[in-house]
């Protein structure tokens, strides 16, 4: 390549991705990185427009058009598979009639360094490409670490939720905790009473005064139930407005009936939320494990539910012992048969 050695050296160091063209458009000089990208024999003396096309700012096919772009950014395509686009700028010189084109990969440099196995020495010392590659890699590593942390936290959260035993709104136990307590009591052959409590008119409170009022009522109800039961009893919120009280060491009706009466009485009084009286009541169905020959959690819960349904049916705000319900049914059956 015919080129002044001093200029060539300067350009090689300062702009390793440069090309020098003569007035005919013939390549007369190329920086070391350009020589690495292309076969040197292919570049030397080749016509610029045979290897490259210029698409932006507009299509340019001759030297006159190319020289006119001096000082503004141009986009140069070269035919590879896939075709790659370089950005660059053209200045006249170094010799009269020549132009020098300095090129860069732009944002596609991340792929280009892989494809051409470029090293830090292929870029000018002042070029920030290597710093950018460092950042891309460092940020990806940091993002990956964060992603893994998020994944582990998500797993831990799901696990914690699964193991949670508390109802967040009321601070009572949840259904899961109640199931565990009941199973435990039955398997150790304890005598228990199981009360299924459903609030009456709760939906009206929600509909009339909003969910904040509903939440407040549920919290008040929870407080009442805690106050009216013993510390050894389990009070759980098992649904939107459904509660279960598991009473320990109970063989007879006396205690659950008394507790239920007090709960019903206290919940009969309106609960005031932001000046509005919220009127609810409680319907209760109760079973005793002592009434079963082989008490079973599912069976007891089903029977308590049936007794609760009976309380609702009979006009709400009352308790039904499932044993009484059975006796009543037996009497009706016997009466019918007589």
């Amino acid at each position: 390549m015919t080129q002044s050695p001093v200029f060539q050296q300067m350009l090689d160091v300062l702009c390793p991705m440069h090309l020098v063209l003569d007035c005919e458009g013939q390549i007369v000089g190329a920086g070391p990185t350009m020589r690495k990208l292309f076969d040197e024999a292919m570049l030397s003396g080749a016509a610029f427009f045979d290897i490259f096309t210029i698409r932006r700012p507009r299509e340019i096919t001759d030297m006159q058009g190319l020289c006119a772009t001096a000082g503004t950014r141009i986009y140069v395509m070269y035919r590879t598979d896939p075709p790659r686009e370089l950005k660059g700028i053209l200045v006249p010189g170094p010799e009269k009639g020549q132009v020098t084109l300095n090129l860069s990969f732009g944002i596609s440099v991340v792929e280009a360094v892989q494809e051409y196995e470029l090293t830090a020495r292929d870029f000018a010392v002042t070029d920030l490409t290597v710093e950018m590659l460092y950042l891309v890699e460092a940020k990806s590593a940091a993002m990956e670490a964060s992603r893994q942390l998020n994944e582990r936290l998500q797993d831990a959260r799901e696990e914690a939720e699964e193991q949670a035993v508390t109802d967040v709104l009321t601070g009572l136990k949840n259904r899961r905790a109640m199931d565990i307590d009941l199973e435990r009591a039955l398997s150790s052959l304890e005598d228990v009473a199981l009360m299924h409590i459903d609030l009456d008119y709760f939906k009206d409170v929600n509909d009339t005064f909003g969910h904040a009022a509903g939440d407040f009522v549920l919290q008040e109800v929870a407080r009442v139930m805690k106050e009216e039961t013993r510390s050894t009893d389990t009070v759980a919120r098992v649904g939107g407005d459904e509660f279960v009280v598991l009473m320990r060491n109970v063989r007879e009706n006396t205690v659950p009936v008394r507790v239920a009466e007090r709960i019903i009485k206290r919940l009969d009084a309106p609960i005031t939320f932001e000046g509005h009286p919220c009127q609810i009541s409680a319907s209760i169905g109760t079973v005793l494990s002592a009434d079963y020959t082989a008490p079973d959690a599912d069976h007891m819960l089903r029977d308590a539910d049936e007794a609760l349904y009976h309380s609702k049916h009979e006009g709400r705000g009352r308790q039904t012992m499932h044993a009484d319900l059975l006796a009543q049914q037996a009497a009706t059956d016997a009466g019918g048969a007589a």
Partner: protein
Amino acid sequence: MHGLVNRAIQRFVTDCYGEAQWRAAIKRADVGVTEFEAMLTYEEELTTQVLTAVSDVLDRPYEELMEDIGTYLVSHPNVEALRRLLRFSGVDFTDFLHSLDDLPDRARLAVSDLELPRITLKEQGTGYYRLSVQSRIPGAGHLFTGVLRAMADDYGALVFLEHQGSENGAEIVGVSLLETEFSEGRGFHLGARAG
């Protein structure tokens, strides 16, 4: 202290000595955690407590342990990503040495709340440098001795390193660069990503 630092200590112990030794060390440290998360922040004192416990459990002098951790960070395949990030700093070992002053800033660019020791490199004569390392973790100079030794191997340079004690709260490491192209070193491609 940033979780990345504590996590690095944990990985060093598990990768080089096994899970059981880590469990023994973290139990001995009694710091209320059993594992470190890389992207969380922990109490400052915890790091030194863990390092002391590791030194006790492995029955290694503290200074040697720190140097081993430094070597591990550069040369173990499980932390290849870190070696790559360090190699971005310089085209050869001399270039790398001169970039060490920028290390804390480089680290902060990647992880904004990561604080690395302040490092100052002074050239004392041809091929002889004096590195001062200022850190809240005692033994950081020993750790950097390990890092530099491994990085010299990585670049294929022959160096003589010597921890020269402390001065004004900073640890001093003497670096004699005997030969820059002593061996082939390990390859480094800008575009190759560590898995």
